[in-house]
């Protein structure tokens, strides 16, 4: 057991009013300084390539989705947010997702899916806001997840720069 004794107050402190005046003077001084808070929805946060927003699927320049429904992101996701059903396509790649769902309420924006993907098909976008009237609407399907490659290019370049050394040393194909 520890007995904590209060500090004895000095006479000036016990008089009360001088301390009030001191506190108010600080408040008054701060009124004229530049605020450090932000008017969030009107003034959005600055975003750059390091921002890890919600994951999005890359649509390549030829209009096809890059994902082959390999399921690597599904198994890497620690929040079990991703569900994929694959199927056959006539494109030379043979395989594509027929259903690709990310439950945005589960997603913890960790970026593991981006890291796991062997096809550069899923990247963390800079989209952060998430609100809707029902839970079902926040389970995003293929159509809601697709983004043209150009919209994600900044992040793609960043991830490549980050991984460059690793990629160079272990590439097999």
């Amino acid at each position, binding site marked *: 057991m520890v007995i904590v004794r209060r500090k004895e107050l000095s006479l000036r402190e016990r008089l009360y009013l001088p301390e009030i005046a001191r506190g108010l003077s600080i408040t008054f001084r701060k009124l004229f300084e530049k605020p450090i808070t932000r008017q969030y929805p009107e003034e959005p946060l600055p975003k750059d390539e390091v921002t890890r927003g919600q994951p999005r699927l890359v649509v390549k320049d030829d209009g096809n989705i890059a994902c082959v429904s390999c399921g690597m992101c599904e198994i890497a996701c620690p929040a079990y947010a991703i569900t994929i059903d*694959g199927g056959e396509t006539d494109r030379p790649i043979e395989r594509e997702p027929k259903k690709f769902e990310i439950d945005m309420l589960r997603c913890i924006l960790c970026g593991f899916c981006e890291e796991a993907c062997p096809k550069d098909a899923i990247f963390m976008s800079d989209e952060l806001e998430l609100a809707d009237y029902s839970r079902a609407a926040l389970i995003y399907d293929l159509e809601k997840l697709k983004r043209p490659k150009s919209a994600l290019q900044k992040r793609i370049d960043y991830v490549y720069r980050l991984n460059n050394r690793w990629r160079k040393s272990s590439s097999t194909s």
Partner: protein
Amino acid sequence: MTKITVNGREIDADPKKPLIAACHENGIDVPMYCYHPGLRPVGSCRICQVEVKQGDAPARVVASCRTPVAEGMIVNTDSPKAHDVRRECLEFLLKNHPLDCPICDKAGECDLQDYSFAEGQTKGRTHEPRRKLEKRKSLGDVIVLDEERCILCSRCVRFFEDVTKKPQLTVADLGSRSVISTFLDKPLKGNYQGNIADICPVGALTLKRFRFQARVWNLSKHLSTCAECSRGCSVTAEVLRGGDTKRFRPRFNPKVNQWWMCDTGRFAFAHVNAADRAVALRRTADGLEACDLDAALSAAASALRGKSNVAVVLSPFATNEEAAAAKALAARLGAKTCFVSPAPNALKDDFLHTGDPCPNRRGLTDLGFAGLAAAEVAGAIAGAGAVVLAGERVVELLGAERVAALTGTRVVLFDTHCVDAAALDACIGVPVHVEKDGHWTNVEGHLGRLTIARGAPRGVRALDENLKRLSELVSPAGAKA
């Protein structure tokens, strides 16, 4: 039995089997691609090499699938030399491998992946472009061949030579241009093609009906028995996320099907995956309406109570446990019993398929149920006061029109789907065979096990349980009927 020493452990080996089999049977892992316990060994892939010392000769590295066991042999599967040759062998196998694991159906259960992980080197040293071959070559209705992925182990070739005894595949061309091909590029024939996709150690042979439907690690695998004929091959039912059954695959059973199964059974999903399952319905003044199980059972009981001349008709898919419960119910009701016996089909062959699409004929017959053809059943129940139809697909096999035509007979139905019949008083859902525990007795008397691979639809209970409850409701134990 021959005594040999493997990794310092003395084991008894069967002299008729190669060294690799002795290792596997004693729980010592030796990689293999071309060897398969059900096929003639050829020793073409060299991944199974181990170090062997015999007598005074220096230790040498041999292919364990082509080496007979000899008394006093000292085997080391783990020596640096053995690992080294296996790593080199993998490097050659991977030299032209497309490494398209992200799109390959075999990923996750691929021997090439597994052994590369265990023994291979992490870096490729090739600079040349990889061999380009045909990636989607159809070999008939069942199989697609990816020539790039094939490692030319020739298991598929030997399957048709050794197991079905009707050769259909061959290694065409020579050297690095070798590819697997059917004779004159004709499509594969027969009811056993699917097996070559199972035994292909890589993803070169894939099933058209499974391709890309699911990643194998998302499938939960459960013991089951094939429902398509009275052979009752032991299978694994593989279920995707508790929903659809995506695959049936043969499960090794030395007494019934060894490693194999037929394509009819392999692709028999239509019924197990059917939608719109019945749960519980009863007849009211305005026709059939959904209700809870208790209400449906009491409607069933009042339809049966006090009726004379009752019949209990089982489906040929009823398990022994369900049949026993049906027999007890019949005894309480003083009812006749029989099961609907589907007609033999033309699939009979000299390998596995018996041509009798009734997986539990032997079990039901042993329990005293007579197998009657649908028309005979209809004749037998024509004048009955009430009839209990029980088991999955009983209406389908009896003919919905025969049930609809019944007049003066009240019907209690236990089936996966309801039928529109004026005589129907209650319909209670049953689990399909991948949703229940039980046993079927196959044509030779072996018991085939069924386990719960996925839950039945909400509200559906086991058929034997419901039949027992119905017996209680119709005439409570102890009371005189």
